């Protein structure tokens, strides 16, 4: 039985289990102690000191985040001295911070700004020395601005503890301390896998996505007819972008999203879902081929570009296991500049492709040489994160919440429910199984729901019996979990057949480009991907089409253009390859 501890917080008695921290005990009483470096899903740091409290019998302050309660403890969380101490701490942080809130990307969503406001800092008392560092925008995905860093180390911790990449560390000491990759080298010369989780956990704007809004505004403002501008939003955008406009987490907004994109001026609004259905066809055939003895098992999925980067830097020996399928985004972009261009009588260079992604690694994927046309132009011209698109919609003055529902254009906008769930961890697996089960059994109606692979648990394993065969599957999200499953595969023993790997914890719905969560929720809170995923599963169940291979537009595409799944043309256009890349990551 757990020992219970009695204590008082601001004169209110409370009983909590032994081992509870002051911060958590206070939360039970509805007292929110300010914090900056603390994050409930990361290890304790105790760096910022903002959460200090006064404890009877002590003449110094204690930090609430790390201090465990004891019997008879008397805590003051709001004495004048404590308020003053917290204010001083934040003021000192502000003194070493560029005071450019008005022009900062995180204005209104910055935790430092919020704390400064809450603690009542209304003037600057000191004008001290300030650290000056250049912005590092060498990476295609993640921009690092060390001047805005408050050294809370949340990025260091998420990169190490959740993603197992450990690309970031504090360098130097004292006033010269700076967080960055090894040797403080450029981000594009580091082990960074570009998942963007550092952006999500950063309390300020020390990490941000590489801006693509400028180039999209530019394309949209071209005289009519110069370029045919097409757009494709990923599955998880429709489950999350509503949050940016004050809608409850997990509100599906597909129709409003389409209308908003039309109002921004896109000539055609297609759906990455179509690419997802196509990925399933190609990947399911690849899987069936490998099950038939052609190539290695397990088949590892390849939709997540953060995972692909991790594969190439950390586990290059696993490349032969990985599906050669391009991601849904890249498949669809490729079709837009080939199949669709042909249909429209346009040259590929007359089409401008914008992808809306929950992901910052997709920006890098789009720039890769493997995803370029023969003339060197990329298939995907711009990749906007959910946040970037939400800002563009606001900037354009579109009243998102009250928009009428629109519909995707045809034919690249038709999709099955299997595509929608790609945004949730386990979704790709479930979508693949829906199709594979039908192909393996030869029965028209295979199972639709695969409960074993749902939910935000970091690593899920199951054995399914399909057509008399035992198929061992695994689903992982968050790359520390990917390491576990990859090491298991390498160790031999159990034969896995199909493994889904997503870089971000919770899958794409919690990707590095998704909206910052509202005030009452933390990034990495499992509820966040769970609620967003619920919206996707709802869209799925509401659809008539539930299996990718039932998508009539896909069927038509193969007949009219691609030929056979995994055939020569499909292989040329829809598949890619990977190679070991440097610097080699330490796992």
């Amino acid at each position: 039985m757990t020992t219970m501890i009695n204590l008082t917080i601001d004169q209110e008695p409370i009983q909590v289990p032994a081992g509870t921290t002051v911060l958590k005990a206070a939360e039970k009483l509805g007292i929110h102690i300010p914090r900056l470096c603390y994050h409930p899903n990361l290890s304790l740091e105790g760096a910022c000191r903002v959460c200090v409290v006064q404890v009877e019998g002590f003449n110094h302050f204690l930090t609430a985040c790390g201090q465990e309660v004891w019997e008879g403890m008397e805590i003051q969380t709001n004495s004048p001295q404590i308020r003053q101490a917290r204010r001083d701490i934040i003021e000192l942080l502000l003194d070493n911070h560029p005071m450019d809130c008005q022009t900062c990307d995180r204005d209104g969503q910055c935790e430092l700004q919020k704390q400064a406001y809450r603690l009542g800092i209304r003037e600057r008392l000191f004008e001290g020395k300030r650290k000056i560092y250049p912005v590092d925008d060498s990476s295609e995905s993640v921009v690092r601005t060390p001047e805005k860093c408050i050294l809370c180390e949340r990025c260091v911790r998420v990169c190490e503890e959740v993603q197992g990449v450990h690309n970031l560390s504090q360098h130097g000491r004292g006033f010269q301390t700076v967080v960055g990759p090894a040797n403080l080298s450029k981000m594009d010369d580091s082990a960074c896998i570009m998942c963007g989780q550092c952006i999500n956990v950063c309390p300020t704007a020390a990490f941000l996505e590489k801006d693509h809004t400028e180039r999209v505004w530019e394309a949209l403002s071209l005289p009519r007819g110069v370029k045919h501008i097409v757009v494709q939003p990923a599955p998880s955008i429709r489950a999350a972008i509503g949050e940016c406009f004050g809608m409850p987490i997990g509100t599906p907004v597909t129709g409003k999203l389409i209308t908003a994109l039309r109002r921004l001026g896109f000539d055609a609004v297609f759906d990455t879902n179509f690419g997802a259905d196509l990925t399933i066809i190609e990947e399911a055939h690849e899987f069936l081929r490998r099950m038939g003895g052609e190539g290695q098992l397990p088949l590892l999925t390849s939709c997540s570009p953060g995972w692909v980067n991790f594969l190439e830097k950390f586990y290059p020996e696993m490349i032969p296991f990985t599906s050669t399928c391009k991601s849904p985004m890249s498949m669809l972009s490729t079709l837009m500049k080939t199949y669709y261009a042909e249909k429209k009588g346009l040259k590929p260079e007359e089409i401008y492709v914008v992808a809306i992604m929950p992901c910052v690694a997709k920006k890098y994927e789009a720039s890769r040489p493997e995803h370029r046309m023969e003339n060197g132009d990329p298939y995907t011209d711009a990749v906007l994160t959910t946040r970037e698109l939400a800002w563009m919609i606001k900037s354009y003055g579109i009243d998102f919440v009250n928009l009428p529902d629109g519909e995707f254009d045809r034919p690249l906008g038709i999709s099955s429910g299997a595509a929608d769930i790609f945004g949730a961890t386990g979704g790709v697996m479930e979508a693949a199984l829906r199709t594979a089960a039908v192909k393996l059994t030869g029965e028209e109606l295979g199972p639709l729901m695969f409960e074993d692979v749902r939910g935000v648990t970091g690593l899920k394993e199951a054995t399914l019996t399909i057509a008399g065969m035992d198929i061992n599957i695994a689903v992982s999200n968050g790359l520390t979990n990917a390491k576990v499953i990859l090491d298991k595969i390498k160790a031999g023993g159990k034969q896995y057949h199909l493994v889904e790997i997503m870089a971000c914890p919770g899958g794409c719905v919690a990707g590095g480009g998704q909206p910052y969560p509202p005030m009452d929720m933390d990034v990495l809170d499992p509820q966040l991907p769970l609620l967003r995923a619920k919206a996707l599963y709802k869209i799925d169940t509401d659809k008539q089409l539930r299996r990718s291979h039932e998508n009539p537009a896909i069927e038509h595409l193969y007949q009219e253009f691609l030929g056979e799944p995994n055939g020569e043309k499909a292989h040329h256009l829809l598949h890619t390859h990977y190679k070991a890349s440097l610097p080699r990551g330490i796992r």
Partner: protein
Amino acid sequence: MTTDNWTEIKAACEAALPAEVVAFIEKHKGTPHSESQLIAILHMVQNTAGYLSKEQMNAVAQLAQIPLAKVTGVATFYHYFRLNPRGKHMINVCLGTACYVKGADKIAQRLMGDLGIQFGETTKDGMFSLESTRCLGTCGLAPVVMVDDQIHGPVGPGDIATLLDRYTTKKKGAKAPIPV
């Protein structure tokens, strides 16, 4: 199809480090808390090479399987670790209280001017490295400058040229300290 680049990486890393460092890393690999050997490993590397090069830090990271960011984070945190090649002679200017009130800053300025380097740097000819230090325990001689393991003091800005000369000219008595 082999896509693994580990064999080449391992070979290059082993070539970048002295054999005894590689052996030391191997010996501790897989033992509990093996990554707490990091500082000991970096000491060994610096003791043989005089400083920690990027190549060597990377080799330590790969062979010991300690993330490179952690290695360079530790190397930049501790004052003792040097990230640049060390000159033939190491000049340490004491900036402790006693030396400082006796004008150590002027000596430091003069040294920086004459050598054309800042603290933590090495002259282009590889002759001198300049560092600052705290109290050397010879406050009676303040202000003092330590060259290699010899203490010189009291030193005035005017003595710097002669002092440096003793180390640059290859006379027989060149290594003898300035009489105190």
